[in-house]
């Protein structure tokens, strides 16, 4: 599987935000999008996830062996935005259960996922009772309970403490090493660059061009 982005242009209410982006991600590769506030990270992620229309260009997901893109690519993605997409009135378990069933392809159990994000045993708490960082961690657990090859995550580590950041970096590495792809917008480093250098590309939107430690398919 391969995600190919060709000549992508994004705009917000008529204003061009980024233009002519070209890159591609193979299985096991990650793209880290950086840039100052308002540089268009979230806009790019939303265009890739199909939540905003590109003003030009295309996002293609190409299955190995096939020639044409799978359509629509966003059905193969998990999207985690600035919001957590949790219902505060429901318990943590009910929330995760819903997302597991709704997204299909269940992967691991709810309690197992909660252990992985460092919150074992909170299944029965209503989501309203969690602290900001705990909520964020539950919404990360959402990515784990059902399988999608591509994770599109927008500042996933906001509100997380140091220990959880490390946990999350490990989760991303696991996902990559199992053949997934990750596109992350972030202000902090994700804490994985050093280990897995080859596979991490970075895109700085302030310069609106692609720079990476390895050569890119362009």
């Amino acid at each position, binding site marked *: 599987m391969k995600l190919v982005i060709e000549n992508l242009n994004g705009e917000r209410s008529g204003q061009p935000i980024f233009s002519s982006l070209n890159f591609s991600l193979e299985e096991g590769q990650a793209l880290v999008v950086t840039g100052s506030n308002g540089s268009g990270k979230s806009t790019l992620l939303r265009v890739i996830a199909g939540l905003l229309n590109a003003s030009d260009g295309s996002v293609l997901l190409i299955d190995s062996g096939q020639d044409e893109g799978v359509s629509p690519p966003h059905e193969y993605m998990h999207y985690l935005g600035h919001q957590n997409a949790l219902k505060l*009135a429901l318990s943590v378990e009910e929330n995760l259960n819903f997302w597991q069933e709704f997204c299909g392809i269940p992967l691991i159990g709810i309690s197992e996922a909660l252990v992985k994000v*460092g*919150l074992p*045993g909170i299944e029965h*708490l209503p989501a*309203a*009772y969690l602290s900001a960082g*705990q909520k964020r961690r539950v919404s990360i657990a959402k990515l784990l309970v059902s399988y999608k090859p591509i994770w599109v995550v927008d500042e996933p580590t906001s509100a997380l403490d140091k*220990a959880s950041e490390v*946990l999350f970096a490990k989760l991303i590495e696991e996902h990559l090493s199992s053949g997934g792809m990750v596109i992350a917008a972030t202000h902090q480093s994700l804490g994985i660059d050093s280990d897995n250098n080859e596979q991490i590309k970075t895109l700085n939107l302030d310069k609106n061009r692609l720079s990476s430690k390895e050569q890119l398919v362009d």
Partner: protein
Amino acid sequence: MTDVTTKSVGFWAWFWDLANPTRFLAVASWLIPVLAIITVTLLGIGLYLGFSAPQDYQQGATVQIMFIHVPSSWIAMMCYSVMSVSALGSLVWRHPLADVSIRAAAPIGAAFTFLALLTGSLWGKPMWGTWWVWDARLTSVLILFIIYMGLIALSRAIEEPITAARSLAIITLIGFINIPIIKFSVNWWNTLHQPASVSRLAKPAMDVVFLYPLLTMALAYTTLFFTLHLMAMRNEILRRRIRSMRMSAARRIDTQSASQGN
């Protein structure tokens, strides 16, 4: 004089002691069966007396409905009064059992109000020729029912016990104005419904063949109410205990994992 004060101090001390849920549960565990036995006995006597009563010259056999209609109505109002006192207790004295009491009483009160409405309607059809009229007594009981349901919905909707307690207590107190309206509506407005004929202290305007079974049934309903209320309070206390155990479990694990992480 002194005797009385020490006694009341003793009572208050005991009352506050009940605030300890464990103590309350212990008391409830023997009080509930005792009350249940008394209730069953009284119900037996009341039903026997009721069914062996003669037919009323005016109302015929439908007077039988009175033996369940009037106690249900009384309990419906008494239950709300209990809740209002509890609401005061919760707001003013902050007695911990008061919130529990309000929340536990609401469904029971709703059930008895429903019975009052239903038996009243079943009595009204033969007596007045219609299931329902919009007279003051009937309407105010209907409003009592709505208030009960609203309180139930509110207490279910707010999960957090402390916030829920505040809202519940206030709304309960606001709704209390309805109780005197129910009680005195028959005197204030000229309506179809029967004015008080039992509770006129000096001389009840009712024959003893009807009065005795009615009073017995009323007593039975009262003990029934308290039995049910105690059971419901016990459930509510356990529910809160479980909730706080779950929360502390979550927190404990959380801090553990945090300290491991560091």
